[in-house]
């Protein structure tokens, strides 16, 4: 697979294969990840290649998946568990919050939980109820859990490897709407990307656009159009790791541009956009030439698929928010 252009989904598969190859203590576990290769095929071919002892189909119980992962990882087995959809992650939360996030702290470092919990998230694929959620804010609020979201094949590969090698529990959320959106060259060189930094995808002078996950697509498209059509130069930053956040990069950028729009799919109220907006205001109030704006999902339930586009922010929404922010004057 070396040096082929691949999708984000294939990059996940590639990183998993690489991790299984490199470290015999890595184990995958989840519902339908074996012969079926996962409902999205993220684990396609891995059971055939690495065997049933390392790529394990579990009984249907998310609490169990999380609890097993805690137990396994305390013994040094780097467990990469899959939750089939983020909408089914809730039964796993007690083990993530009460145990995985605390094991190291609770034992003063005697034991730890080097585990990864992967889950596809977000809307826009015409899926049934509970298959379109974005509840990353719940997880990112928990001290001790790292929350990581890739937005391109390259970052999916590098961040997932980093997550698996990380000695802390990592929640790895995969933006399923862009699983197959585009192909890019990913070198299977085994190099991880850092988990403590945002990625500046595009430099700009006028305004900082901050986002993560699938919305990076719309954000980049908006930046492109704004440059073409209005000569507005947007700096685009992919937050990528939502806990702990690399606030320094965001602050530096907004200090430079003086303006920002934060874009996410999750509901507005208590979303992570709030944390970013608040931190920016608290830290660089005097550099701000306009209030930060949030372009987010509304505070209602993601509708069933027939109307899901009514819920999801789009490129125009971002463009409008940017223009209004650019035009702001007291």
């Amino acid at each position, binding site marked *: 697979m070396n040096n082929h252009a691949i999708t984000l989904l294939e990059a996940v598969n590639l990183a998993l294969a690489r991790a299984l190859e490199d470290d015999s203590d890595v184990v995958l576990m989840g519902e339908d990840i074996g012969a079926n290769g996962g409902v999205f095929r993220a684990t396609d071919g891995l059971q055939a290649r690495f065997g049933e002892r390392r790529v394990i189909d579990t009984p249907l119980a998310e609490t169990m998946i999380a609890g097993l992962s805690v137990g396994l990882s305390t013994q040094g087995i780097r467990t990469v568990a899959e939750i089939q959809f983020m909408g089914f992650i809730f039964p796993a939360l007690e083990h993530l919050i009460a145990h995985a996030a605390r094991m190291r702290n609770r034992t003063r470092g005697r034991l730890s939980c080097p585990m990864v919990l992967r889950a596809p998230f977000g809307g826009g694929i015409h899926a049934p109820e509970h298959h379109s959620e974005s509840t990353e804010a719940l997880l990112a609020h928990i001290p001790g859990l790292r929350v990581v979201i890739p937005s391109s094949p390259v970052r999916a590969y590098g961040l997932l490897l980093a997550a698996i090698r990380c000695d802390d529990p990592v929640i790895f959320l995969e933006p399923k709407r862009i699983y197959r959106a585009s192909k890019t060259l990913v070198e299977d060189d085994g190099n991880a990307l850092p988990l403590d930094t945002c990625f500046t995808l595009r430099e700009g002078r006028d305004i900082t656009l901050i986002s993560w996950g699938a919305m990076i697509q719309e954000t980049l498209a908006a930046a492109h159009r704004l440059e073409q059509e209005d000569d507005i130069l947007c700096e685009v930053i992919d937050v990528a790791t939502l806990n702990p956040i690399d606030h320094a990069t965001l602050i530096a950028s907004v200090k430079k541009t003086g303006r920002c729009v934060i874009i996410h799919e999750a509901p507005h109220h208590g979303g992570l956009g709030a944390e970013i907006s608040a931190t920016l205001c608290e830290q660089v109030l005097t550099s701000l030439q306009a209030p930060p704006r949030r372009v987010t999902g509304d505070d209602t339930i993601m509708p069933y698929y027939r*109307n899901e586009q009514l819920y999801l922010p789009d490129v125009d929404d971002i463009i409008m928010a940017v223009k209004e922010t650019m035009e702001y004057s007291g």
Partner: protein
Amino acid sequence: MHEVSYQGEIRLTRYLDDAGNPLADMPAWACGETPWVGYYQQMVLARQFDTRAISLQRTGQLGTYASLLGAEAIDVVCASLMQAEDVLVPYYRNHAMQMIRGTPMAQLLLYWGGDERGSAAPEMHRDLPNAVPIATQCLHACGVATALKLRNEHQAVLTMIGDGGTSKGDFLEAINVAGAWQLPVVFIINNNQWAISVPRSKQCIAPTLAQKALGAGIRGEQVDGNDAVALHDVVGQALERARAGKGPTLIEALSYRLSDHTTADDATRYRPADELKAAWTRDPVARLRNWLHRQALWDEVREQSWLAEARQLVEAAITVYQATPPQGVDELYNHLYAECPAELAEQREQAQTRQQRRQQGGADHE
């Protein structure tokens, strides 16, 4: 020094063999036209609905759809034995149950077509809508049953779950509390042998799933889920026990998922073809037809005419479904709270403006 402190057993009920022949002399209640011909007709209708729903999905006119192929007998018999004032707490594969309980087929299509109004049919009375998160419905069923008990209503609650779902805590907690509180619930396991790609054997090492009832101290039994006569017997008695205040029952109905898991699934990736082929020899619809034929309660003429009628019913529903305009953008906000809070009302207003903008062609055309 050992003594036996508990003994339990599970029985399996069957009346008809795979070909629809009686396994022994049939009891009197099993003979005659009622309810069997009605059951058969509902099963045929359900299958017709299913076939068309899949074809709608394949042509982009319906979302991901969970076929009930192979579970027709279970659904039809359960729903038919329920009284109107009993309460159904379905899972996502109970289309036939819902139809028989009164939900118009067009509403079922709306649901699978990605429209919340599918769960809003007034004909559903107090039945719960589909539960997508596995096994959660079992606890809801216990809650509903507790409500009935508190109000001294002598009705039953019926809920269904798949074989895979029996591994999840919700199901296990539910049968436990149903026992502890002697709730009027009937739990049906549609053991169709697969949970997407995970075979029954990987969920649990116990030889039956019904024996989970023993752990909860409630009655548990197995029934041939392809055998409408056996289902009628076992489910009927369980419902009566529930209504009579005699407590819950767990029934494992042995069936087979003759379809893919859903239209989003491709079972050939993980399921041996010969297993599927063998399962077709136990098809519940053919089995009941054979048994009716044998008793001269059904024939090819009735078959054709009913098929035509079933097709018509389904096509009429499809027409209604397709003619239903989508909900307005305000409907995203109208039903979340009993009264829409101020902030949300503001978001609703902005969403309406945005929707107008989108319909007029984007930001540039403001």
